[in-house]
């Protein structure tokens, strides 16, 4: 199992899986491990996303009509269409035609304006500056407004007098680090965030975790040893 905790090995496996060259038993074994470990899933998912746009380079080919007919029959879509109309179709019953047209126009404007906006997830793949085989993943989700941490067992040192503390390092180096909260060596590590913090993520370059002494009041800057750090990337 240990080899799957080494980023050099598991990132290569994740890339091979995403590309398709990881085959046979090795592929099945990796799928089992992905089922257990969020960090493997996250890294593999990131590579699948990176490779997927290659499909757009293929010249499009219209599939025969029978494919849709078979899908529609299997999912019994003919029966559900009448019941589940689109949001636009539903509006017709409640508002005049002109209003629907203007709502639709606004929706299109909003959709266009949203292009290139802030992503909905950020990920920091953090490594230990001291022990290269140790890593953890921090995911920042807009959907649930939280930062979720995933790490192999034993990634965080268990020390009664020290608290693993999470920091966000701004891209602007004149700005001080932001203290986000503390982690526990055991159990789930999730931190709720507010809208302002979510917006700030666009200006964060790195996540870092330091060991802060318990017997001192929380400081605005890391005082203890940095045990993990890694760049934050938008997914």
């Amino acid at each position, binding site marked *: 199992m240990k080899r799957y905790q080494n980023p050099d090995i598991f990132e*290569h496996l994740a890339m091979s899986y995403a590309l398709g060259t990881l085959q046979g038993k090795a592929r099945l074994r990796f799928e089992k491990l992905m089922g257990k470990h969020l960090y493997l899933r996250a890294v593999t998912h990131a590579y699948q996303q990176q490779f997927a746009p290659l499909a757009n380079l293929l010249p499009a080919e219209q599939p025969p009509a029978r494919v849709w007919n078979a899908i529609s029959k299997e999912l019994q879509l003919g029966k559900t269409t009448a019941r589940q109309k689109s949001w636009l179709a539903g509006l017709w019953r409640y508002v005049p035609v002109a209003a629907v047209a203007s709502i639709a126009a606004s929706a299109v404007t909003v959709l266009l304006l949203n292009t290139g906006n802030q992503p909905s997830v950020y990920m920091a793949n953090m490594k230990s500056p001291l022990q290269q085989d140790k890593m953890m993943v921090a995911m920042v989700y807009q959907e649930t407004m939280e930062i979720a941490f995933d790490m192999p067992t034993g990634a965080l040192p268990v020390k009664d007098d020290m608290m693993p503390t999470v920091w966000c390092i701004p891209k602007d180096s004149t700005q001080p680090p932001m203290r986000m909260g503390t982690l526990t060596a055991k159990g789930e590590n999730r931190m709720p965030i507010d809208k302002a913090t979510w917006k700030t993520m666009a200006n964060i370059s790195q996540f870092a975790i330091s060991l802060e002494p318990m017997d001192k009041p929380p400081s605005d800057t890391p005082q203890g040893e940095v045990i993990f750090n890694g760049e934050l990337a938008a997914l």
Partner: protein
Amino acid sequence: MELLNELLQRSGQGDATAFRQLYDTASPRLFALCKRLLRDEALAEDVLQEGFVKIWHHAAQFAASKASAMTWMTTIVRNQALDKLRQRQSRPTIAEDVEYETLEFASLAPEPDALQQSGEDAERLLHCLEQLKPEQRECILQAFYHGQTHEELAHSLAKPLGTVKAWIRRGLEQLRGCLQ
């Protein structure tokens, strides 16, 4: 891109009309991918069907996903095709098929609309692929589009297995560095 995302989200809420529009918009590229991977039109149709059934059943999970709709659907359909390739008793042959070896279809100077659909991620990926040695790039693209094993790549490129494995390993290492 945004339109596809919206159609997929509405499909997740059980909107069959949106799902039909989603299929009409996305299926031609996904069908092309299935045909490349499976090299069998009937099998490609089966996989496209299975893929879209899966997309309908899992569309509700898309809202929490981090990918664009096209990327999300490509991953589902491609995994379905790779599973099908592995299930087959005899894998399709590729050796004599020149079209599949030249990969001209996957030009690294694609049409502007293809790039626009893929966004910045695709541009970065293409930039990184261009930095690779030609043989490394060829192996990686062959593996993506044709789902070939190391052994099949060695056969179709007429190179020793160890050489092909090394090309792919180094190619992926270099890509990893470039993409980060």
